C-alpha cells in the first residue's frame, strides 16, 4: 500500500512530538487505544485558562504511519483553537486531509477520540461542566 505524500511528510517530520506536564491544572491528557490493538495515542493540550484557547499540543503515538500522521495533524490543528472549536474536529476531516484509505479510517477515529479525551480530562480537572457531546466519549 502506498502512503499519501501528506502521511509520509507527517511520519518523517512529525509535528509536536513530546510530553506536557500532566500534573499541571491547565494540561489535559488523552490516552486512547491499546497495545494489543496495535495503536496507542497520547495527546495532550495546554490551555490558556483566561481565554479558553489551546496554546500548546503534544503527542506520542505507538502505531502505524497513518496513526502517527493522524495524531501529528491533530496537534497542529489544535494549537490556537478554542476548546469549542477543537471539539468540532471530526475524524473525516483528518481522513480527507491525509487521504487515508478505508483500512486506515480507524486511525483518524482514534485521533478524534484522543482530542475529546484530552479535552474531557482538562475540563474535569478544572470542574468545567462537560458538554454532553464530549461526555459520551
Amino acid at each position, binding site marked *: *500500500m502506498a502512503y499519501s505524500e501528506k502521511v509520509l511528510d507527517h511520519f518523517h517530520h512529525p509535528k509536536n512530538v513530546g510530553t506536557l506536564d500532566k500534573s499541571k491544572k491547565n494540561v489535559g491528557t488523552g490516552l486512547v487505544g491499546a497495545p494489543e*490493538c496495535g495503536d496507542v495515542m497520547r495527546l495532550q493540550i495546554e490551555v490558556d485558562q483566561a481565554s479558553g484557547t489551546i496554546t500548546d499540543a503534544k503527542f506520542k503515538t505507538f502505531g502505524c504511519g497513518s496513526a502517527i500522521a493522524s495524531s501529528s495533524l491533530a496537534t497542529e490543528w489544535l494549537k490556537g483553537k478554542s476548546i469549542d472549536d477543537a471539539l468540532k474536529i471530526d475524524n473525516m476531516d483528518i481522513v480527507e486531509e491525509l487521504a487515508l484509505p478505508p483500512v486506515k479510517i480507524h486511525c483518524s477515529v482514534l485521533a478524534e477520540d484522543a482530542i475529546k479525551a484530552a479535552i474531557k480530562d482538562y475540563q474535569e480537572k478544572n470542574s468545567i461542566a462537560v458538554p454532553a457531546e464530549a461526555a459520551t466519549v
Partner: protein
Amino acid sequence: MKRVYLDNNATTPCDPRVVQAMLPYFTEKFGNAASRSHPFGWEAEEAVDYAREQIAALIHADPKEIIFTSGATESDNLAIKGVYDMYRSKGNHIITVTTEHKAVLDTCKHLEEKGAEITYLKVNDKGLIDLTELEATIKPTTILVSVMWANNETGVIQPIKEIGAICAKHGILFMSDATQAVGKIDVNPREMGVHLMAFSGHKMYGPKGVGALYVSRKNPRVKVTAQMDGGGHERGMRSGTLNVTGIVGLGKAAELARLEMKSDMERIVKLRDRLENTLANSLEEVYINGDPNHRMPHVTNMSFKHVEGEGLMMTFNQNMALSSGSACTSASLEPSYVLVALGLGDDLAHSSLRFSLGRFTTDEDIDIAIKSIQDGVNHMRSLSPIWEMYKEGIDLTQVSWSAH
C-alpha cells in the same frame, strides 16, 4: 540508494541461470508436452522429463513421484482434498496445526463444510507441536496428518521424522507443506515418512506460477483424486497443459539448489546470526520468536517491544523489504495468527518483523539492515507513549486500555 531485499520467504528473485534455461522454451521450443506426434511435442516432453529428474534428485525421490502444479497452494489443495476424496470411505478425520499456511487451513475449512472432521493441534511457545498430543488425537477414522516442514513466518522446523514415524505406526498418510524448506535445506520425504509434499518454484529462485506435489509411489502407493477435470495429464492427477517453461525453470532451480544450497546456507546462516545478535545486543527489549534450535537458517522473526511493526517498516521501506506480523496493512486489525499461536501477546505480535535472507543477500545488505533497524526502532520509541511509560516503570498490564 541500494535497495535491500530481506523478504525471501515471500518470494525469491529468479536466478539468472534459471531464466537462461527457460528462454528457449518460450520461442523455439514452444511445443505442447502432450503432443506425441511431432518433434515440437517431443522436445517439450523431453524437457519436462529432465526437469522431473532434476527435482526428484533434489528431494531424493523417483521422478514419477513428482506431479507438476501451478504452485504450493494448488499442491496443498490437491494433496488434502485429493486424499480426502480418495480415502473418504476409510474415514473423515484430518489432523493439522493452527500455524499452517492458509492454503492448508482454508482447504481444511472447506472440507469441514463437506463433512470432514478436522483437529487443529496447538503449538508450544517455541512453535513446535507436541508429539504425544498428536498421537493421542489419532482415531480409527483418521486418514491424514498435515504438518508443514518449516513455518513461513518463524522458520520453525517441525519434528517431521517423528511425525512420520507416528503416522507409519498408525497407517495414516502424512502430508507436509515444504514450501519454505525445499531448496534451502536437505529435504527427504521418503526417509522422513512423508507421503505427500507440496512445494513451489518461486521460493527457491525459480519462476512464479509453477510448483509440484510429491506423491509417494511405493510403501505406500498413494493416490489422490484429481481436483480439475481435463486431459488426464500427470497420470490423471492434474489435468491441464504443462507449463513447460515454468517446469524447466523449476527443474533448473532444483538443480542449482541441490548443488549450492549447502554452501549458500553456510554463508547465509552467518549473516542471519550476525543480524540477529547485533540487533538483540544493541537494542533493549528485543525478543526472538520461535525455537532458535529448530529453525531455518535464513529466517529470524524478532519483536521490538513498544514499537509497532508497520510504523517501524515505514522508517525504511523506501529501500528495504521485509515483513511484519502486525496486520495493520490488512483489513483486519488482528496481528499474525502464527505468532499469536506461539502465545505471544498481541502487543509483541504487532511489534514483530520477519527477516528472510537468501542466495543474493550480501554482507553490505546486513550492515544496512542493522543500521536501519537500530535507527528505526530508536526513532519509533522516541514517538511511543508506551515506551515512555515503560521507561517510567509503569506496569503496562495494569493500565486500563480502551481496546477498540
